[in-house]
């Protein structure tokens, strides 16, 4: 490479030098009109002659094309060519430097001094290869067996019923956490508005849970789903929970929710057992759940502190929702008590619920949480079935009168007017009565959620639902919502 480079350099330097010579010659020629010279004829012979037309120079521009130049132009051409050749020479010079350094570097740094350049040689026999293969198989088998063992262990974990429930609870908890995280940021931004949303979402969740608990088969499915969910959650679990614990101070709601979830799961268990007597056992199981995992325990601590707050706050804040609202952070705790009372009063006053809600304030030895147990009453539900009157006697009537089944079909413009009038009337009447009625409705509806065993926080949820319920009528469900939306649109 270097040799080639040198060749090139030589060639181009010669080229440059020749052009320089030509420039000199041309300058000389341009001075004179004619010049005596010896004309070469072939290589071996010369002839005496004279140079004429010294200003006219025929230059070859390559490929057999010639141009007639004046001497000045020819000199310019020469200069251009020299410049070009010098550039090329520069490049070659650089190349030569590079090559030289490349040659020098290994010598300078003793790259080949030591035995670095020895080949890596591995000798393999047929026999050795076989041996290795056998060994490899063995190892692989061991690995597989270990894997199997691990799998078996995992399966076993789920097999026992207690474990199953534990896991379910855990799963639900995690689910809740995940939901919570989606909302956390917003919660900080608009605390009160957020609460409405929270509570909106929660009843839905609880509805789901109720459905699940009512059907055992669904439960199985749910379980499966939860398993899948768990896998996903386990990855994010640690981080989320950590952050969750950090945030618990700021968002006391979360604890409520978690507790609520636990209770729902307990309800499930209860339904499965169909024994109210086992309620206490369930509560025990709750506590056991708490103790089972570290995470739960931490939550327990939070809860206990929360309950302490509750005990402090309750006396002064009872029945005063507004003040509680303004309280904000402590809200969870303070909220619960008065509304719990409200609900309880509703259930007592309006006897339309087919069960009596029994209030039991239990202070757990472990964590001082106040627990309320709702148990079905012995009083038979008094449902007047054939009531065709438009008079509103109890919440049932409202539902019957105002919530007529509606067609899903689109309304034609013909129907529109007629429907509108009636609906408007409906609306106005409803708005007048809603407060009373719907509270009842909600009390009724939430009753399902709260069925047997509710902690005070649970009740808070129901109450918030009630606040919500002016906007969102749960028993009336989708169709009514649709209609309301339509109305809004018309207005």
């Amino acid at each position, binding site marked *: 490479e270097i040799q080639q480079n040198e060749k090139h350099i030589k060639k181009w330097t010669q080229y440059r030098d020749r052009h320089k010579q030509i420039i000199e010659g041309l300058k000389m020629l341009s001075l004179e009109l004619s010049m005596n010279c010896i004309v070469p004829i072939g290589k071996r012979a*010369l002839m005496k002659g004279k140079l004429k037309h010294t200003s006219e120079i025929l230059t070859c521009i390559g490929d057999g094309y010639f141009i007639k130049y004046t001497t000045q132009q020819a000199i310019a051409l020469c200069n251009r060519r020299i410049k070009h050749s010098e550039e090329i020479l520069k490049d070659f010079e650089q190349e030569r430097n590079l090559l030289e350094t490349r040659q020098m570097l290994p010598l300078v740094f003793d790259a080949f001094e030591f035995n670095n350049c020895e080949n890596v040689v591995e000798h393999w026999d047929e026999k050795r290869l076989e041996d290795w293969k056998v060994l490899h198989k063995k190892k692989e088998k061991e690995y597989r067996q270990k894997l199997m063992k691990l799998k078996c262990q995992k399966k076993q974990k789920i097999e026992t019923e207690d474990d199953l429930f534990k896991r379910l609870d855990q799963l639900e908890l995690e689910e809740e956490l995940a939901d919570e995280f989606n909302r956390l940021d917003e919660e900080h931004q608009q605390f009160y508005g957020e609460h409405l949303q929270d509570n909106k979402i929660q009843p839905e969740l609880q509805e789901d849970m109720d459905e699940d608990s009512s059907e055992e088969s669904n439960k199985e499915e749910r379980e499966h789903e939860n398993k899948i969910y768990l896998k996903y959650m386990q990855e994010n679990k640690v981080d989320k929970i950590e952050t969750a614990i950090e945030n618990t101070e700021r968002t006391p709601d979360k604890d409520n929710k978690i507790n609520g979830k636990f209770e729902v799961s307990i309800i499930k268990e209860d339904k499965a057992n169909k024994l109210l007597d086992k309620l206490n056992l369930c509560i025990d199981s709750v506590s056991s759940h708490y103790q089972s995992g570290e995470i739960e325990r931490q939550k327990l601590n939070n809860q206990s502190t929360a309950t302490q707050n509750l005990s402090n706050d309750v006396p002064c804040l009872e029945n005063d929702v507004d003040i509680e609202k303004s309280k904000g952070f402590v809200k969870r705790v303070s909220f619960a008590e008065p509304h719990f009372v409200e609900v309880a009063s509703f259930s007592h006053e309006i006897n339309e619920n087919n069960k009596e809600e029994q209030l039991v304030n239990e202070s757990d030895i472990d964590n001082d949480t106040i627990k309320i147990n709702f148990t079905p009453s012995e009083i038979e539900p008094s449902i007047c079935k054939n009531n065709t009157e438009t008079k509103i006697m109890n919440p049932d009537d409202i539902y019957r009168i105002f919530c007529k089944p509606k067609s899903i079909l689109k309304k034609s413009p013909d129907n529109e007017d007629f429907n509108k009038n009636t609906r408007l009337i409906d609306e106005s009447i409803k708005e007048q009565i809603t407060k009373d009625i719907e509270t009842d409705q909600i009390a009724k509806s939430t009753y399902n959620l709260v069925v047997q065993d509710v902690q005070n926080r649970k009740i808070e949820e129901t109450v918030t639902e009630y606040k919500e319920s002016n906007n969102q009528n749960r028993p009336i469900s989708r169709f009514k919502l649709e209609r309301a939306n339509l109305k809004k649109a018309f207005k």
Partner: protein
Amino acid sequence: MESNIQKKVLQFESFINDVLKQDLAVLEKKLDEINSEIAEFLQLKSVINTIKNIGNKANGFKTKVDMGNNFFIQAEVENASHILLDIGLGYFVEFTLDEALVVIDIRIKLFERQVINLRKEIARTNAHIKVILIGIRDLQGLD
């Protein structure tokens, strides 16, 4: 014995490659040079002949002189009756056209003799190579 023969074979082969073939290459180079010179002289001869044929009447002609790198300048030869010939070592002797033709003929004859000599030598080296090859084959063929 065998090792001896092997050694000899190797020696012969190296001799062929290192000596005889090198000689052959040199001879060929010389031959090429001489041939090119002859060609030049023949060309010159033809040029002189043409000048002689035309030059007597016009007494002079115009050419383009190469200044190097294909820069041509017009030149005019006014007196075409004399010509300078290279006699070696950078010396030129002025001849008339007729004299020049004689000298060129002599030179060409000289070159042709040289060529014959070179041809002979080349043939000889070729023969040497062949002989040695046969010898090697014999050495190997006997065993």
